[in-house]
């Protein structure tokens, strides 16, 4: 069977499966807004773990990380994987666990709604919604472009980019609208299994391809003979002490501030479930990140000479070179699965925030669900339009977004852990943090400078975070308000 036929068969089977899962979740989703937006706050360990992991891991890990490792070597693993394996679970404890409890007590169904009720301030909810949306839309546009390009390349142009992107959006929208949070969580189990399983299997196949009969040992020696620097950590750019420190802060804190991640933590059935997830997370991260980095490192041996962004093609080059047609079809499907496992959560979360934070929650529980579905369509159309008319600037915003979420973390944490923290402090923190973040970005080279050093060698995200902490404390004490509207319920 030729590779193209293999891919189409795998693609059709995958689409039928995810739509089938969406249909299975439909019956319960329409019964109430809590069922639709939060799966009845009843997600258990396995489903929630895969939902969080699938949402957390985008196609960037499968395609962008190998491209970066092609040039930078194992340093890409060193600077990212270890600190998130510790940092992300700790944020699930610090923010996720109290957010889940308080959301249940206050009847909140979105992150912005939770903090709006906690502070007794609609303004806080609207401002949080605005920043969540500003930082999430560029992400979604970038993901759609990645999926569309993948489909076009794999089908040798038979699926034009705009049709591929629209199809991915429509499929994600259909099963998300059908089954709400439960459908996205169930499909994430399938999607996460596809891309995690593929990466682990591909690592061994690629090692044998590069290392010959000696397998992994041969591949590592081939890397050493080709360029020993790939086996170490560079000493420039992101790998200098100040940049490394600020990147460690950013990548640890940003994930819990994704609204589509935080809302899933709010859907956990218990603290015990969140604890179980914290124990599983490091293992899954190693299983995904180590192969992703090694694809790039082995790729540097197999396909030397790629320059700059050309190395983003190394994943598809390795897949095409070393895998039989059926497995290579699975590889490209893994990229689509990674895109959709994040996209569905983003559509659902932004739609629910529009429905409950900008409009007020409906008296009719089913009315909320209808509005959530309608706003899901609005979000999907907005993403498609931004992709087609947004130009290059929208893509440079994606790296700004990744660090930008960190500017919200002082409020996310202190709102749940500091009783006196009030609405004035929250607004001062968010607006001050973002003002300083964008000033630091400007000094680091504009919108493309999110990963470049700003003042004293630290990345812009570090300055935004520090400003957010200072703004929270100053705003709270200078306003004089005791700020306990919803704090009693949070046990702070």
């Amino acid at each position: 069977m030729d590779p193209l036929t293999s891919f189409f068969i795998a693609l059709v089977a995958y689409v039928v499966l995810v739509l089938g899962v969406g249909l299975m979740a439909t019956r319960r989703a329409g019964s109430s807004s809590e069922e639709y937006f939060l799966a009845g706050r009843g997600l258990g360990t396995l489903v929630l773990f895969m939902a969080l992991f699938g949402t957390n891991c985008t196609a960037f890990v499968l395609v962008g990380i190998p491209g970066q490792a092609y040039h930078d070597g194992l340093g890409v693993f060193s600077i990212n994987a270890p600190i998130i394996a510790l940092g992300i679970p700790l944020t699930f404890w610090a923010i996720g666990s109290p957010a889940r409890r308080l959301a249940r007590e206050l009847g909140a169904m979105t992150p912005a709604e939770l903090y709006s009720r906690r502070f007794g301030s609609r303004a806080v909810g609207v401002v949080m919604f605005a920043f969540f949306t500003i930082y999430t839309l560029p992400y979604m546009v970038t993901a759609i472009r990645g999926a569309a390009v993948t489909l076009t390349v794999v089908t040798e142009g038979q699926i034009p980019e705009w049709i591929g992107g629209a199809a991915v959006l429509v499929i994600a929208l259909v099963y998300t609208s059908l089954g709400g949070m439960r459908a996205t969580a169930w499909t994430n189990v399938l999607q996460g299994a596809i891309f995690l399983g593929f990466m682990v299997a591909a690592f061994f196949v690629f090692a044998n391809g590069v290392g010959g009969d000696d397998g992994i040992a041969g591949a590592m020696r081939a890397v050493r003979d080709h360029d020993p620097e790939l086996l170490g950590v560079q000493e420039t750019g992101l790998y200098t002490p100040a940049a490394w420190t600020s990147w460690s802060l950013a990548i640890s804190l940003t994930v819990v501030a994704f609204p589509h991640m935080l809302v899933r933590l709010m859907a956990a059935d218990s603290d015990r479930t969140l604890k179980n997830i914290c124990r599983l997370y490091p293992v899954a991260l190693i299983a995904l990140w180590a192969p992703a980095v090694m694809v790039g490192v082995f790729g540097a041996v197999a396909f030397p000479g790629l320059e700059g962004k050309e190395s983003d093609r190394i994943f598809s080059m390795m897949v095409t070179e070393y895998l039989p047609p059926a497995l290579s079809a699975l590889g490209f499907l893994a990229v689509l699965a990674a895109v959709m496992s994040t996209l569905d959560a983003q559509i659902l979360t932004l739609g629910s925030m529009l429905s409950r934070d900008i409009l007020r929650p409906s008296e009719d529980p089913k009315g909320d669900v209808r509005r959530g579905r309608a706003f899901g369509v609005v979000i999907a159309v907005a993403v498609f339009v931004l992709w087609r008319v947004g130009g290059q600037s929208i893509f440079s915003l994606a790296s700004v977004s990744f660090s930008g979420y960190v500017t919200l973390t002082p409020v996310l944490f202190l709102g749940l852990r500091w009783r006196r923290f009030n609405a004035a402090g929250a607004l001062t923190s968010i607006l001050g943090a973002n003002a300083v973040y964008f000033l630091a970005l400007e000094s680091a080279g504009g919108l493309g400078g999110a990963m470049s050093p700003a003042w004293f060698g630290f990345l812009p995200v570090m300055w935004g975070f520090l400003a957010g902490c200072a703004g929270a404390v100053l705003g709270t004490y200078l306003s004089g308000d005791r700020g306990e509207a919803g704090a009693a319920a949070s046990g702070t």
Partner: protein
Amino acid sequence: MSKRMNNTIAWTGAVALLALHLDFWRDRGTALLMGWLPQELAWRAGWMLLSTLYLVWFCRSVWVEED
């Protein structure tokens, strides 16, 4: 162990792990241990094992379930 003691251990452990992650004091070599395992990968894998053990302990001793 008392809550205060657990909190002290938790903070000390977190700071120690962070210091080991920000390992600019270390010679980050490019050698292959046993002829196949990159020294850098071995160091990070060891760190991740330590941090996983820390998380398991943290979930058991510090994280109080409040359902």
